[in-house]
């Protein structure tokens, strides 16, 4: 188990290193002068040169890379060319917002998907099971930005139940926070719930065909009881994997959802930074996203053997 975790940790560190090199290299070969963009069309060549010097843009790439990575290791993501402010607090603040959004969405998706998927499997031949399957198929096909637009039109513009945009921190008012959270979270969660429902359904169906369920039933348990006592834990493994992957895609989906709902999360920051050619900020945000995705994968990897002893023993 320890060597398994150590192995995964090593992979984690390596991936992070490779990502940092890639991100830095990609940003460096982008066309356009960041200092010129920051200063606009009226900038004099002297002003551009001064800004380049101030932020070390005129230094060789290797030195810039080392100082960038060195800064990040101490929690300093640098200073934005555009705002002139430190990037770290911006990233920390926006990650919190996106974190709330994404975690609420995945929890909601699981809360919807686990019972629905299980039910769809148990009632496989029933009209309820068929309906759930069909609905989840439709849900998968709907991109979450489309879900967001439909939700806004229905629940915000027509019914007026929720605001169509904006964000409020929970400390500023729980009601305001929740009312602004609902539409973005639901638009993110619906698609995920649909995907997870299908996985849950097929996982339960697979488990139901296992010998130990047959044994349990032979001992007199009902189908449902056998599943709940012996099967769900096994069915959870593929669902955990998928939920982990989903969490990563949710982070990406949040970029669009944050735009639609004007939410100050990491996605909005990224779009803004890209538009302003604020390269240090873009680099920082991309690295944080990479880090988050890697952490999620790492947790999923470590969760496996805990949930499934067979993997633990095999490693």
């Amino acid at each position, binding site marked *: 188990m320890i060597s398994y975790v150590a192995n995964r940790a090593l992979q984690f560190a390596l991936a992070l290193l490779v990502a940092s090199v890639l991100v830095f290299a990609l940003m460096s070969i*982008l*066309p*356009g*002068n*960041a200092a*010129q*963009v*920051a*200063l*606009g*069309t*009226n*900038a*004099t060549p002297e*002003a551009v040169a*001064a*800004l380049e010097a101030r932020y070390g843009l005129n230094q060789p790439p290797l030195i810039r890379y080392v100082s960038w990575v060195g800064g990040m290791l101490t929690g300093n993501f640098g200073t*934005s060319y*555009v*705002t*002139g*402010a430190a990037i770290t607090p*911006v990233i920390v603040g926006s990650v919190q917002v996106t974190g709330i959004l994404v975690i609420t969405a995945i*929890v*909601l998706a699981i*809360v*919807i998907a*686990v*019972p629905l998927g*299980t039910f769809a499997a148990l009632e496989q031949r029933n009209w309820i099971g068929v309906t759930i399957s069909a609905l989840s198929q439709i849900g998968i096909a709907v991109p979450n930005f489309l879900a967001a637009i439909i939700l806004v039109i229905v629940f*915000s*513009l027509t019914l*007026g*139940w*929720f*605001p*169509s*945009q*904006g*964000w409020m921190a929970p400390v500023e008012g*729980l*009601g*305001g*926070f*929740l*009312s602004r*959270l*609902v539409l973005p979270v639901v638009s993110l969660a619906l698609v995920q719930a649909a995907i997870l429902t299908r996985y849950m359904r097929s996982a339960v169906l697979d488990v139901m065909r296992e010998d130990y369920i047959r044994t349990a039933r032979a001992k007199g348990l009902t189908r449902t009881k056998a599943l709940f006592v012996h099967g769900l834990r096994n069915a959870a493994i593929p669902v955990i994997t998928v939920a982990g992957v989903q969490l990563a895609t949710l982070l990406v989906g949040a970029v669009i959802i944050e*735009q*639609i*709902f*004007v939410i*100050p999360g990491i996605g*909005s*920051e990224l*779009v*803004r930074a890209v*538009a*302003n*050619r604020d390269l240090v900020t873009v680099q920082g945000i991309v690295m944080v996203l990479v880090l988050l995705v890697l952490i999620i994968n790492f947790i999923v990897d470590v969760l496996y053997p805990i949930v499934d002893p067979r993997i633990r023993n095999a490693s």
Partner: protein
Amino acid sequence: MGTWVAAAAASSLLLAGCSAGASDPGDEAKKDSMTIAFTAEPANLDFTTTSGIAIPEALMENVYESLVRVDGEGEIQPALAEDWDVSEDRKTYTFHLQEGVKFSNGADLTSEDVKFSYERVQDEWKNALKSKMDIVDSIETPDDLTVEISLKKPSNTWLFNLTSLVGAVFDTEGTEDLANKAIGTGPFSIEEFTRGQSIDFVARDDYWGETPAVKNVTFKYFQDAVSASNALKSGEIDVVSNLQAPELAGEFQSSDYQIISGTTNGEVVLSMNNAEGIFEDKTARAAVMHAIDRKAVLDTAWAGYGELIGSMVPPTDPYYEDLTGVWDYDPQKAKDLVREAGIDGEEFAFTVPNLPYAKAISEIVSAQLKEVGLKANIETQEFPAVWLDKTFTKHNFDMSVINHAEPRDILTVFSNDYYIGYDDSSIKKIAEKADTGTEEEYISGMKEIARTITEDAAADFLFLFPNLVIAKSDVAGVPANRVSDAFRIADLSWN
């Protein structure tokens, strides 16, 4: 069955939260506050070091004031200066300051503050617009309420320039943290600035002028025009300033809303590289001028909002002249000119910034050019980075299209080293004479310049970018024309 219970509990909790919050974006104290949507967001609050329209748009005339301001008709009006005298040789301006003006930090406005602010433009500003103050020779402060500014030479543009951000007056003790703290003499102070999201303004009790009707004004920033118009429809905001998607305006044609379409300083220019390539030849440029149906371009690309101008001068400038008749839409003449220039069927690079209006324009323009035998290879360039680099800085283009939004920028755009590459030897002397001459000489000189540039077919002035504002019907005082950098909120009120 634990899962089922948990699911039910969670859903009901969520629903409870929702209904509790649903009434939240409510109408309480509505008559005291107003929320306005903007597109360009300020990176910080310091326009002395950061360029772009967003910061002066929020701060000028609201938080910071200048000695003079420009009204919606383009006329210069007194602001912090009650009045002013100009010396016989027109090189010295004596400004008499308003009495009893206080900064938001409680300090009194004195002539020292003006001297400090304007000298600071020359010494400390990083914003490229600082060059507008280069002409100032010396600033004297004979008493607390008098400022004497001497120029190196007479200038008609300088007083107008004072209405822009370079004219902002700061407190001598108030410039420590300009990026986060704005201390000015204006009717509002900033209560909260949430970068990238919003600015909350609150009206000052101790403002020297008339107290604003609306006490709390919020600027909210939307990168997406659809989100902004949704927010207006659902009542979360009251005004959308300068809607960047004119096709959405149609949805607001009801008695609940008002659509205001005023003018701006933004000339949408179909620029041609005058210095090299296919359009170095005036005949080739003339062919383009006759080939473009500007009315059709305006209708297709910007839903008909905007004005045809025919030159680099908006109607609010004192030297405006209707030059739309100089180059008429005449495809046959264009075809002849194409043949005469020997460029029939020739391909050229049309570099288009990836901005909504530019992309829409490029499609119809290239279709119209094709009609007369010119083949534009559209290359979409990311704005600002790629366009600024390749087209603007390296001049690597034949044709482009961009909205030149700076006020009174004709001489900037048609100077020799600007990206258009216009040979300005014929207008340079006139410009010099106009700026140093009397006001009449200024106006006639600038008219001559505008006409020369248009007749040279230096660029095709497609249309004047509109100031398209959508507001709830009971909002009053929205500035229709955007003549200066400022979005003045002191005049706003509820009917």
